């Protein structure tokens, strides 16, 4: 039994992406309970060695001409099919036709992504339309969440993108957003007078409608 195989099995079996450090920690813990003689050495496995093994694994997959690759997402490593097989997979699984977000949803998300945390009024100031319903839909799809309240009159809520957002767009960090350096600094027209939030706040504090 080799470390590379354990790492492969682990990434494959994990229900969500796993980070290098999670893998290292888990292997150390499991090695301590193992009867295998080779496991002794893994009881103090450094993270750097796991990182190395992950590189080897990714390389062996791509050199072996596999349709599956090891990819690093914002929340860790996971196996994914290569882009070029997308059409073939959809022929087998027509129900997996992707649900693309609408331009309005993308605009709203872009604003939140680049300027988070941001208030609803500030989003509306740029988009020029009311975004109540849209925000609720984005929250329902777990692309956006409420991160707190701004220190402004009316204490408006602040919105941020989630890890689901990162996964959905395959972005590892916010710096990776297209044109990040420019857009994250652009001075925005902001809501001149912070509007009072609608019923959602007054009705059920803590339970978002």
């Amino acid at each position: 039994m080799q470390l590379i195989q354990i790492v492969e099995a682990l990434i494959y079996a994990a229900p969500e992406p796993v980070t290098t450090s999670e893998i290292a920690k888990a292997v150390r813990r499991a090695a301590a309970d193992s009867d295998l003689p080779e496991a002794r050495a893994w009881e103090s496995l450094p993270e750097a060695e796991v990182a190395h093994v992950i590189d080897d694994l990714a390389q062996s997959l791509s050199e072996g001409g596999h349709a599956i690759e090891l990819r690093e997402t914002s929340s860790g490593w996971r196996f994914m099919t290569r882009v070029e097989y997308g059409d073939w997979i959809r022929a087998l699984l027509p129900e997996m036709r992707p649900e693309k977000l609408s331009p309005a949803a993308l605009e709203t998300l872009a604003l939140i992504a680049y300027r988070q945390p941001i208030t609803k009024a500030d989003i509306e100031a740029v988009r020029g339309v009311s975004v109540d319903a849209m925000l609720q839909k984005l929250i329902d799809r777990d692309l956006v969440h409420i991160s707190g309240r701004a220190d402004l009159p009316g204490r408006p809520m602040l919105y941020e993108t989630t890890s689901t957002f990162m996964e959905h767009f395959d972005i590892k960090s916010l710096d990776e957003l297209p044109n990040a350096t420019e857009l994250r600094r652009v001075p925005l027209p902001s809501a001149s007078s912070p509007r009072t939030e609608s019923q959602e706040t007054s009705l059920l504090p803590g339970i978002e409608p």
Partner: protein
Amino acid sequence: MTTPESESILPPEPAYAGGTLAPSAETHDSHYKVSLDVFEGPLDLLLYLIKQDEIDIYDIRIERITSQYMSYLDAIRTLNISLAGEFLVMAANLCYLKSRMMLPKHVQPPEEEAEEEDPRWDLIRQLIEYKKFKEAARELGEKEAIRQNQFTHSPDPIQSDEEGERPLDEGVGIFDLIRAFQKVLDRLKTGEGLGEIVDDRYTVADKIELLQQLLAPGSTYPFTALFDDATTKHEMIVTFLAVLELMKLNVLQTRQERVLGEIVIYRPAS
């Protein structure tokens, strides 16, 4: 509330980039019906008009853009399509700008902060900001398209020496059964008619006997396949009741390897 209820999280059917939109008031209905959903808001519409005119954003002629904008809204209104409030607010804003621009400089009412500033400036700045994020949104859309061509697997069963470690091995709840049954009924509903046989020929006892013949001890059978031969809804219900009865008597068990997976009927050997 001015919330545009039509604002969907999914894309509108017609493609904006198609370029078939003619903003002249004479053009007839279908274009406008399409276009209102196509513009994400008044700023988007203004950007479109500016692009059509091939003018620089910094160089908008308020008078011209206002009249284009207004004729666009008029056309929409004659079609009795309800207009999101934001479009009207922008119209008012444009008219205000236009009237200011028409006054000679020295009689223009003083703006609060902007002393010498061009009255168009606020609008221009807003358009530029909006355009940047519209572009960013487009790029996000491209990333999304790439990502959606990659697939990952759903959590899979892990093989191990020990049995019984799988999370759903302990049998399926009655609800899963009802849901699966409902699915079968739905499928029947969408298929051809149920046939006109009115005679209720099956009893639960009949079906129990049949099921016991169908499933030898130690064998399994896909749950939904039990209903493949049923010709009436009644027969399916009777079959289902027979399954429930046999489960109660511990003659049959159900298994499901994964959540929402295929349910299998199993008859233990003893």
